[in-house]
């Protein structure tokens, strides 16, 4: 009797204090039947990687509005990999300039969602990315 659920860590790295977007996404994923580990504001990359490990999540959603995404995202991806969690799907929401998107995707981010993205699209993407690998 396997009761697999998709587990997603929603975290806000960096120093900006705007967590409305993170909460909206967390709530939408919850309503889609996922289990969301919400860690709150001002998380360091180390804290995020540690939470992702202890919670054995399938995906990590990062909310970044500070402009520091090109530093934070690669750092978090590297830490996840170092911990043996290279299979964890990482996506980013927030204010990300268009020209940065390809570079983020290149370094392993699987989705970049700017303002106005429908939550349905995020849900669909996570399901599509996570479900094939679930036992």
């Amino acid at each position, binding site marked *: 009797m396997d009761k697999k*659920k998709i587990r997603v860590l929603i975290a806000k790295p960096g120093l900006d204090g705007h967590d409305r977007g993170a909460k909206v996404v967390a709530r939408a994923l919850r309503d889609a*039947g996922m289990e969301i580990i*919400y*860690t709150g504001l001002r998380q360091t990359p180390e804290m995020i990687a540690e939470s992702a490990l*202890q919670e*054995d999540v399938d995906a990590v959603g990062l909310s970044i509005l500070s402009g520091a995404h090109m530093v934070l995202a690669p750092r978090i991806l590297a830490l996840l990999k170092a911990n*043996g969690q290279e299979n964890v799907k990482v996506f980013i929401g927030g204010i990300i300039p268009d020209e940065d998107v390809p570079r983020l995707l290149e370094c392993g981010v699987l989705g970049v969602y700017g303002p106005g993205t429908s939550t349905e699209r995020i849900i669909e993407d996570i399901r599509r990315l996570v479900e094939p690998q679930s036992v």
Partner: protein
Amino acid sequence: MTLAENVLQGDRLSLARVLTQIENESEAGYQALNELFRRAGQAHLIGVTGPPGAGKSSLVNQLARYYRQPPQGAPKKVGIVAVDPSSPFTGGAILGDRVRMRDLAGDPGVFIRSMASRGSLGGLAAATSGIVQALDAAGFEVIFIETVGAGQAEVEIAHLAHTTLVVEAPGLGDEIQAIKAGILEIADILVVNKADRPGVEATLRALRSMLQLAHPSPHVFSANLVHGFAYDTAGLFEASEAESERELTGTNNGLWITPIQQTIATDGSGVADLAREIGKHYQFLRESHELKRRERARLAAELDFLLRERLVRHWQSQVTELQYNQTVDELARREISPRQAVDRLIHDE
């Protein structure tokens, strides 16, 4: 090496994965538990329950910090299992207890795991006990189990934990008598958190009088009544054995007086005193043989639960969905009563 062996070696990723398998009630999870069970049974299990917003997570954060940096003695490895409710409609959940536990980040002697209740109503999830066993086997010496925000009926934690803290806050219960009667009975230690808030005196007064009302003076619990609800361990021991235990422990050790502790979890006030009371309770449990009793009762309860689950599954395999639905239809038309429906489904297979 099996996953369980890696866990015993101290590999954190393997531990996290085993916890997932246990939570998902997968075959791999059961197998790991079978391997880990023999190595468990060493940790002090501390339950933390109370209404939403009383400050359970903040208090666990502070207590964990205390055990990581005790004023004397070696630091203890701390495991934390925090349960939050699943939505009854979508099955989704937002697990937010880590928000209050950021002080513990970066400490390899701490492992925090959030769990959704996944439909269980007793304040814990069905797999919580297995998760705790795995952390126990992995060498965590103190394990906090934080329930969902609880009111009256969520007393399951008292089965699982050795020491149960019931956390209240001022202002949450003007009708404290009505709300707290159920949960008070399972408290080994009552904690009034947010003790800097107005109304704390009234809350303390209400709790004190509640303790006195429940157990007229001297307001003490006898060892066998520490948990007010029915689990009868007396029958598990030979009468003479129970008798001699009582002699051994003497009258003072046979009784635990539920203390009331005040804390302010946001700044740590009162946490050292609370930790001291927790230590005293653990010592009391060990010296009075109550620990063994509880352990045995807990395992018996778990066995009962698993037996029930297995029996239900066995029954389900023998009744077709059609039979079941037809019976529900008859029930809905009020042609048969619920009890008759049970008779039908159990006997007339």
